[in-house]
């Protein structure tokens, strides 16, 4: 059974189809990355999978219809790492990671010992133990990213949605973050659906790429099949050279 399946999923915002008839399946433990130009519908597609925006068609998580699941039930299965997370500056890293346990705490209840333990394990897994008492406003970009990942990990969801997880990081931190996510995927058995702009990195970490353009999937397959010069020229309007089937290098027009 697929971890995530979409059948003819459509999302309309302001009367316009931002996602139009998208079908796809992501197998358990797989890493699938959505690529495509700005406004292609990548973020909206992720939001639909997280149940944050209404959709037409059918989305299933482990065979269960998303629309039949309650909000908290969805949050236990799907963790979202937003492109620009809102991080309250005065909140400590520990308090922030504990927020990941929200779907397990009853409406007016408090976190149990089990929740505190899970948050502690997430902190330790991301080497944030020493920073637990630090305020979010004092963290570097890489540390912030790790705190967001720790919150998602504390959620103990099997599907991880990443929206541009590396856009705010330098080259070294980008690599570090993606390696970390891949390691988490392997030891926690997570399924990853990401949206990324950096095509080279997208190809390096995903087992499959989906090229989204104008709300539709226009190409999919192994990175080498999707990262081709004609496809990128057509949908991004960019002149690139693809080296070794993986490295996408922009070329200046003569």
């Amino acid at each position, binding site marked *: 059974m697929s971890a995530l399946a979409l059948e003819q999923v459509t999302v309309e915002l302001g009367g316009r189809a931002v996602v139009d008839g998208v079908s796809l399946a992501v197998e358990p433990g797989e890493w699938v990355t959505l690529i495509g130009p700005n406004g292609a519908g990548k973020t909206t597609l992720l939001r639909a999978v997280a149940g944050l925006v209404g959709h037409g068609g059918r989305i299933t998580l482990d065979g269960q219809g998303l629309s039949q699941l309650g909000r908290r*039930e969805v*949050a236990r299965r*799907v963790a979202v790492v937003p492109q620009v997370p*809102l991080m*309250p500056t*005065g909140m400590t890293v520990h*308090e922030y990671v504990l*927020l990941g346990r929200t779907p397990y705490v009853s409406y007016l209840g408090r976190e149990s010992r089990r929740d505190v333990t899970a948050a502690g394990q997430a902190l330790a897994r991301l080497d944030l133990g020493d920073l637990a008492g630090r305020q979010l406003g004092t963290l570097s970009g890489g540390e912030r990213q790790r705190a967001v990942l720790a919150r998602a990990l504390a959620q103990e969801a099997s599907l991880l949605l990443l929206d541009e997880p590396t856009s705010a990081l330098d080259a070294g931190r980008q690599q570090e973050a993606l390696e970390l996510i891949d390691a988490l995927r392997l030891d926690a058995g997570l399924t990853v659906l990401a949206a990324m702009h950096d095509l080279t990195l997208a190809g390096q970490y995903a087992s499959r790429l989906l090229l989204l353009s104008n709300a539709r999937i226009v190409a999919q397959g192994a990175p080498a099949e999707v990262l081709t010069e004609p496809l990128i020229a057509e949908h991004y309007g960019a002149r690139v050279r693809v080296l070794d089937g993986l490295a996408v290098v922009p070329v200046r027009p003569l």
Partner: protein
Amino acid sequence: MSGRLWVVGAAAFLAAALLTGALVGPVHIGLGAALESVGARLPFLHIDTPLTQTQESILWDIRLPRVVLGALVGAMLAVAGASYQGVFRNPLADPYLLGVAAGAGLGATIALVYLPNGVDFQKVLPPAAFLGGAVAVAAAYAIGRSAGRGSGGATLVLAGVTVASFFTAVQTFVQQQHSDTLQQVYAWILGRLPSSGWTDVKILLPYAAVATAGILLHRRLLDVLSVGDEEAASLGVNVGRVRLVVVLCATVGTAAAVAVSGLIGFVGIIVPHAIRLVAGPSYRLLLPLSVLFGAGFLVLADVIARTALSPAELPIGVVTAFFGAPFFAVVLRTSRRMASL
């Protein structure tokens, strides 16, 4: 400093403020004598009060009701302000944001102007103000909801500003038409704690208790809301429902407080922010501390209001701003924590 230590400290501050409020006044009543008088009213202790009948009456019928009322109003305004700032993620939000003050002002003005002479205003003003405040907030909510959903409460805030302007305009119009009541209306708008025995305490207590309890129960969820509507929803929280319930509690409590005390500004903004600066932004600690410090702050402000120009009284709103603003400036300067929501 740990959370528990903060709560103990805040409770001690409130106890000291209550004692000060009960003991300070033109008629001297000593600490020991006051405590013995309290003991005399407790069962099984068999203590006799050392106070004269007049002193007993001053302590139990004049000072204590006023002190308790001040504590209730201060607690309500501070905790309502803190929760408004939380659900709207707006540091400038105060309990009057959605038009409670303007609506209550209009209700009180209409009562003062149009009711015949001989009516007991002490009895009529609170319900009239409460009704006006409730109508204003209901109007703001209806407009905000019809205008936009899922805008993080921003349209609701704008609707509140709109309704408040409209109600204030009507209130000013009515007031100018009947300039003979100007002074009464003005005195009400400046805010004061009445010395009318336990009646007002009995009016406010049920509303304040239910509203405060409702808000405190949501303190963990207010922390979740601080990461934004979208992320809170992705963590499984029904953001709209939490916002509605918290705003409802804060508004009902504020309307009841305004009804008995008029418009006391500043408490709802300054107390929560001062606490954020020294104790951090987590609502789990911020909300209980707002209750305790807000109560103590207003009781002390009232002591100044009734002693500074004795036997005349200063409007308490003047005191809260005159002493609260410099105090907040000092906290702002010396604090190393960043103010954040």
